[in-house]
């Protein structure tokens, strides 16, 4: 039974992981630092009135997206959610475009048509999310279905939260993926709260158990360990490509900020927040890398510089032209499928994106 203080199961491994080189492990930290730094900068811009609408971040759960996305190959496809910014960064979306997107500028990925993290660069193989959750689980299932029908060695990954496991689309997607044995990886970010609703109001069983009910593997992972997340995703991808069907990865983590910038999360017990602060994913990865002699301060400085430059460039960009507001409802030319994204993991360096 899930509680407020859910512990990660034994799936989380603290020490060296076989499939990661040092560069890989630095990449993971880099992605998390960039995510956090960008979100902090965007939050500041939000408080300056420069980001319209609402602002969401994944503070404290950066490892969930960084680790899982790192295991995805260039031809794999991703449905990324609002607390998974690191996944976009790993695929190759630049910080300038992300900040432009938050500020509703013309240079944003959606050119002002959708806000905050409701974006996906189609050229990098990412599908932009909708607000109805977890609709994207079905889209990812469908992508996996196409890969299987065509006999392609590719998989799809989708993220969703504890709250959305209560909706019908979760069950339809899990069932469909299980029945058809599809190469899809379902990443459940169990961060303990859906807005103000704690998990004990959301499900009566730990959702990882549902994988079995739908006929496939479910694993619980320490969501604040980027390398454990990577390993779980890598293994799930291996299973998928071998034709063994879907995996549900329950990433246990904690939402360290409110639901959105306008939420001060008063409903979360202080002790819970304090407990999880000790398990900050970035601090953990930095600790590992310091032991390997990596210059963490240098890395942080270069990331800050990168973010500063991106902010300056994004702030200088124009707002979208109102005359274009009604354009683009329909595709007028040929339908272009999603393109391939970056896949920095060393395991893909050899041809064919091998496991």
């Amino acid at each position, binding site marked *: 039974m899930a509680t407020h203080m859910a512990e990660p199961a034994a799936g989380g491994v603290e020490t060296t992981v076989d499939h990661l080189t040092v560069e890989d492990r630095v990449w993971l930290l880099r992605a998390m630092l960039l995510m956090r730094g960008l979100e902090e900068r965007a939050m500041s811009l939000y*408080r*300056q009135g*420069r980001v319209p609408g609402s602002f969401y971040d994944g503070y404290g759960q950066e490892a969930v997206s960084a680790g899982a996305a790192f295991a995805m190959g260039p031809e794999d496809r991703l449905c990324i959610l609002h607390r998974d910014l690191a996944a976009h960064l790993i695929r190759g979306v630049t910080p300038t475009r992300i900040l432009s997107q938050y500020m509703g500028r013309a240079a944003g990925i959606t050119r002002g048509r959708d806000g905050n993290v409701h974006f996906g660069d189609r050229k990098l193989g990412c599908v932009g999310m909708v607000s109805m959750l977890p609709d994207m689980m079905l889209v990812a299932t469908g992508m996996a279905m196409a890969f299987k029908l065509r006999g392609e060695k590719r998989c799809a990954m989708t993220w969703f939260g504890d709250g959305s496991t209560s909706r019908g689309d979760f069950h339809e997607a899990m069932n469909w993926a299980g029945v058809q044995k599809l190469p899809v990886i379902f990443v459940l970010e169990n961060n303990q709260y859906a807005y103000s609703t704690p998990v004990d109001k959301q499900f009566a069983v730990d959702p990882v158990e549902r994988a079995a009910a739908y006929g496939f593997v479910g694993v619980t992972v320490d969501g604040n360990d980027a390398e454990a997340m990577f390993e779980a995703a890598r293994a799930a991808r291996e299973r998928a490509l071998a034709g063994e069907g879907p995996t549900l990865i329950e990433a246990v983590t904690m939402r360290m900020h409110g639901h*959105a910038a306008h939420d001060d999360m008063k409903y979360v017990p202080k002790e819970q927040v304090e407990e999880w602060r000790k398990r900050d994913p970035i601090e953990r990865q930095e600790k590992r890398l310091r032991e390997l002699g990596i210059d963490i301060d240098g890395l942080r400085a270069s990331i800050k510089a990168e973010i500063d430059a991106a902010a300056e460039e994004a702030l200088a960009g124009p707002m979208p032209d*109102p005359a274009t507001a009604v354009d683009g409802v329909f595709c007028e030319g040929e339908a272009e499928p999603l393109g391939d994204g970056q896949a920095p993991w060393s395991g893909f360096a050899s041809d064919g994106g091998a496991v």
Partner: protein
Amino acid sequence: MSSSPTDVLVDVTMPQMGVSVAEGTVVGWRVEPGDRIEAEATIAEISTDKIDTEVPSPASGVVAEILVPIGETVDVGTVLARIAVGDGSGASQPQPLDGDTAGAPTTETKSSSPSPAPAHAVRNGDRRYSPVVQRIAAEHGIDLAQVPGTGRGGRVRKQDVLAFVETEEPPLHIESPYRPEPVAPAAAVAPGPVVDGGGLSRMRRQIGEHMKRSLDTAATCTTWIEVDMARVQSARARLGVTALAFVSRACIDAIREHPALNAWLEGDRYTRHTDVNLGIAVSLGDDGLIVPVIPRAHELSVEGLAARIKDIAGRARSRQLTPDDVQGGTFTITNPGQYGSIMATPIINQPQVAILDFEAVIKRPVVVTDADGNDSIAIRPMTILGLSWDHRALDGALSAQFLATVKRNLESVS
């Protein structure tokens, strides 16, 4: 401390902490005017319905002024303070959110395609005219009061005004050269010369003299006959010509059988003409009337006659007739029917021996007999043709026969 004149002032505004938040309260200032502040450092604390939070400085510089004191609640977007960012400060100067940035194109929103100005629904007494009826009437210069309506409650339908247009006359009335111009009558009629001490124009007096002389000269009688115009009506609609054209052709054909009607009597000299030079009386409004002539009208078909009638009537009204146009007529038709009058006693146009009067066509109940000899009542469009004839040259029987032939011709139009 005042900022130097070369400084740029950057606003610090109340942010919107959540989509539904409209205002916030300043609960703390971390700076005073004159203090230096770095970008991103906290400059103020605010409280809103949703959350209490810090406001980071948007720029590095010197605080120029604080506009909203602690405890005051202001709308989202209100300027709370200003920071002077001087030259060489090295700080980034972020552009404001509202997009007044270089490169933001000013565009006008696309205007929606203009809708046509709606026609006003015009009321004429109890009558309302629909937009399309109005439009067609305006295009053809038609007075809708003249158009009979066959729609519900007698309203003028599109078909009614179109039929009116096609025949240039009311469907149950006849094209008449007496019909005034569509434009205001005052414009069409040139005012006649003013005569001292007299009220009649010269033309009016001339016409009067001619008419008097005719009555003094000829032994004028008038005979009438009723004609069922149903076939003419449908042929007319099909060909798009006036009923007058059909009547003209019918008269010409009847003259073939009764040539005595196509003659001149000048004193003792009696001349029958083989050519039918058909005179058509045209009303000139206050100026009276004139009778231009279609020479050799017997050579024209119904459509040809219609065209010539239209032409001479138009030229008559616009005063473009030549003296030749009014000479040589051998038979005249007068057609003042659009006002609804049914019979008249026309005066013969000297030196001719007869004149045919064609008045209104009116729907009447009539007795019809079928092939088996059974009688019933039917509604038919009927007209009464009147022939005034000179008893010096003709007699009643001849005149009646002529009229009967005209009737037969009209009632057998195909």
